[in-house]
């Protein structure tokens, strides 16, 4: 089977507070440490597990992003992915959900995939919309929030996370599958993985390779516009209050203010 996994390089969510540049209205990506989205690490683990259990399958990681995103793809290769594709083009900067999904779908279409893995959502944007949009552009079914996936013949069966448990959902292949974060243990690369990652096939595509018009993607194609960027209510730096009998009320007020009740 030809399996694909869509991945993304993001500012390290654990150490970097995600910031927007008021001038460009885009995510600040300079001067911060960039990593493969931790959510994608578990998605890759799920894809590798499936590839290995199916046998005779190839797993390709695909990403859209600036040149620096090859580092994230190298990490995916080190983890055990067989091949990587990076779609990089200046015209892609500022792409929204649809632009991103359109681009990835165009690249995936050339490959005739059997199964496309995505994370449920990225750890920086959290929209969770790209996988569904890719599925729509490719005309494929989508199996979302999977915490377990099995392929049985020409069908995929997943356990789909719900509020109270899970649903067993099946669909014909090819399909897009999104993996619920934390469902799989991320793979820490072996030395062999790290060394062989340098030699595995790595291709780079531009917009013209995909036959996409620049007006459909990037900032030009965006269907949303940022009007302004403001400062959030500064996270009140540790308000410390001595209990004078009204602590319960103070806490309850706090919870209510933040819609936590």
């Amino acid at each position, binding site marked *: 089977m030809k399996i694909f996994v869509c991945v993304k390089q993001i500012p390290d969510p*654990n150490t*970097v507070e995600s910031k927007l540049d008021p001038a460009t209205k885009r995510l600040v990506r300079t001067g911060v*440490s960039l990593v493969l989205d931790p959510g994608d690490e578990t998605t890759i683990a799920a894809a590798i597990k499936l590839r290995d259990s199916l046998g005779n399958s190839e797993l390709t990681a695909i990403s859209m992003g600036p040149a620096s995103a090859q580092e994230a793809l190298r990490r995916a290769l080190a983890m055990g992915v067989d091949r990587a594709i990076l779609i990089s083009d200046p015209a892609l900067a500022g792409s929204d959900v649809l632009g991103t999904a359109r681009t990835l779908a165009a690249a995936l279409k050339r490959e005739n995939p059997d199964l496309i893995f995505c994370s449920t959502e990225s750890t920086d944007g959290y929209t969770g919309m790209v996988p569904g949009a890719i599925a729509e552009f490719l005309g494929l079914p989508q199996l979302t929030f999977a915490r377990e996936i099995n392929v049985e013949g020409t069908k995929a069966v997943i356990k789909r996370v719900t509020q109270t448990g899970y649903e067993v959902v099946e669909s014909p292949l090819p399909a897009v599958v999104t993996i619920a974060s934390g469902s799989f243990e991320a793979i*820490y690369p072996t*030395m*062999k993985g*790290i060394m062989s990652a340098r030699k595995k096939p790595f291709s780079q595509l531009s917009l013209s390779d995909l036959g996409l018009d620049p007006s459909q993607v990037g900032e030009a194609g965006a269907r949303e516009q940022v009007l302004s960027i403001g400062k959030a209510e500064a996270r009140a730096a540790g308000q410390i209050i001595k209990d004078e009998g009204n602590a319960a009320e103070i806490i309850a007020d706090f919870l209510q203010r933040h819609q936590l009740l």
Partner: protein
Amino acid sequence: MAPPAISPTGGWIGTTIFVVIFLAALTVFGLRVGQLVTLLAKARREDRTDHLEERIGDFLLVVLGQSGVLRDPIPGLAHFFTFWGFIIIQFGLLNLILGAFNGSLLLIGHDHTFAALLDLFVLFVLVSLIVFAVRRGIVRPRQLSSRLHGPWDGFIILGLIFLVLLTLALVETFGFAASHGEEWSLLGSWFGPSFYGLGTATNVALYRVFWWAHILTVLSFLVYLPGSKHLHLMATPFNVFFRNYGPRGALPLLENLEEREDYGVSKAEQFTWKQLLDGYACTECGRCNTVCPATNTGKPLLPKEIILGVKESLLDRRHEIVGEPNLFQKLPLADVRGNGHEEIQPLVGGVISKEALWACTTCGACMEICPVSIEHVPKIVDMRRSLVMEESDFPPEVTSLFNNIERNGNPWEISNDRRAEWAAGLGVPLMAENPEAEVLYWVGCMGSFDQRNRKVATALVKILKAAGVNFAILGPEESCTGDPARRIGNEYLWQMMAQQNIEVLNSYGFNTAQAETATAQHGHGHNGQTSRARTIITACPHCFNTIKNEYPQLGGHYEVIHHSVFIDRLISEGRLQLPSGFDHRKLTYHDPCYVGRYNGVYDEPRRVLAVLNSNGVTEMRRNRNRSFCCGGGGGRAWMEERIGKRVNQTRVNEALETEAEVLAAACPFCIMMFEDGVKGVEAEERLQVEDIAEIVARALEEAATPSATRAGQ
């Protein structure tokens, strides 16, 4: 070469038979030993010929003087006599063998003094045998059980030695009786005359029977030896001679990471010959098990089983390693494992369980106590390396540790930019601001980020300021040393971190090797620094050990001092004025493994504490080089402890036994583990955990405000 009074073989036919049997036994023995030696020859290379003079000296002390085993006095003495008895009995044996050729040993062959000495040792060994048998059969310390050689090996050996002694005594008795005292021996002179009545012919016959019995017992022993734990008899002297003389705290470097085929050890033959020799040398005394913090808290790790597991796996794989046996070797007797085709289990995850490998705190207590210089920890780390770097198979909670060290330069999800935040407002310069600083205070991740250990860092700053030390810290230029990564088996990550740190340290001119060359040239090092050897101090024994003992493997040579030693030095140089006996609380001191056992620092911290505390230092049951680990070393601080008792609580309970109110430590990991341990045993009210620096800093405050309430009053 005077002939014996009686020919033991009774002529050339007997002698011929003897020669044939003797040569056959020697051949089988040779084949078996040859197999063992070939296995070593096929193993990885390692140079152990440095420090020759010390090697010879220690060899004499440990092998001939038996200093290793004598640390445990009762079995130690018994072993001492068995060892020397064995050597002397060999001469007696040679004498008896020469008898078959109508000869005897030069000088001592008929010497009564030698004969008397020989028999005295026969008696000593006999007593020792009784001691051993009682221990093995009745006392039965748990550490003696042997999975590899089964429960009978020990008894078979004891039985064989007993038979050797018995047949020797009988040979002497009937030799004396048959020759009417001409063949003199002490035992013969005691028992021989009672048999005069049997008549000379009978006595001669009995002499010959027992001569044969003695020779055959000895030869069976010889053939049995290589496949038993008594292989140590031959291997131990070599093992002691070739022991490690490098820094004890340094794990071996895994070279050439980019082009290697394997990373660590998953098959026995990937160990170096010395690591494998350890298996041959192991006497299976189990002393290592008795001191191991994992074994003692019910974890599936027994250090002895690690050593024997490696040996077992090596012997199991002998045909894979050496190739199919030839016709000779196919003789079952000629094979160390009796040539059986047992199912071969993998070394890691088979013969040795992964859980056992992950349970190790690398505290080094096993290596410290081993009488025959076996190196347990490097083997464990070698196998961990394979698990981590080849299989990516390690406790899942370690993944984030590795990722964080690699991405953030510290074990947590904290940006390394915030490394100097703890020092805000304390007036601590960064190296970048004070490049001429004499002393670099290497704060380490715990001191920089952990709230509890930040207090230690703050205390140390107070001390340095009070002593007028010109110092600085690196701040965000400092990264994790990589120590936990290395000990968990991620050599790649350690090398990455080490190189990064070495670059920073060198840029400020701390590298002593570099400073020397630079001085030789222009008197100036990199970064325009004056090149002189400058000191790095740290309150973290793990940082201390790896920078001092392991960074040299990558070209980083630094003068590194643990803060307890530095404080001691400041006091003795008079730079630090402390009120003596200001602290009246009862105090005990825990020796951190990487300060004590690995780097031999025992006295300095005690000296500092003794000055301050009116009661001096109350010692715990296990102290100094036998200190019991806090449970946090070897990366264990980052792993779950799911099995057995808690190591930290075990040690805290030991501190509580002394009725001390203060448990003084000198390691951030010990402090973290003990803080948790004290909470775990619910002893917060009774026991405080404090770093030496905190105690000293408080004394300084005390000195500044003499009217303040004295601690503990």
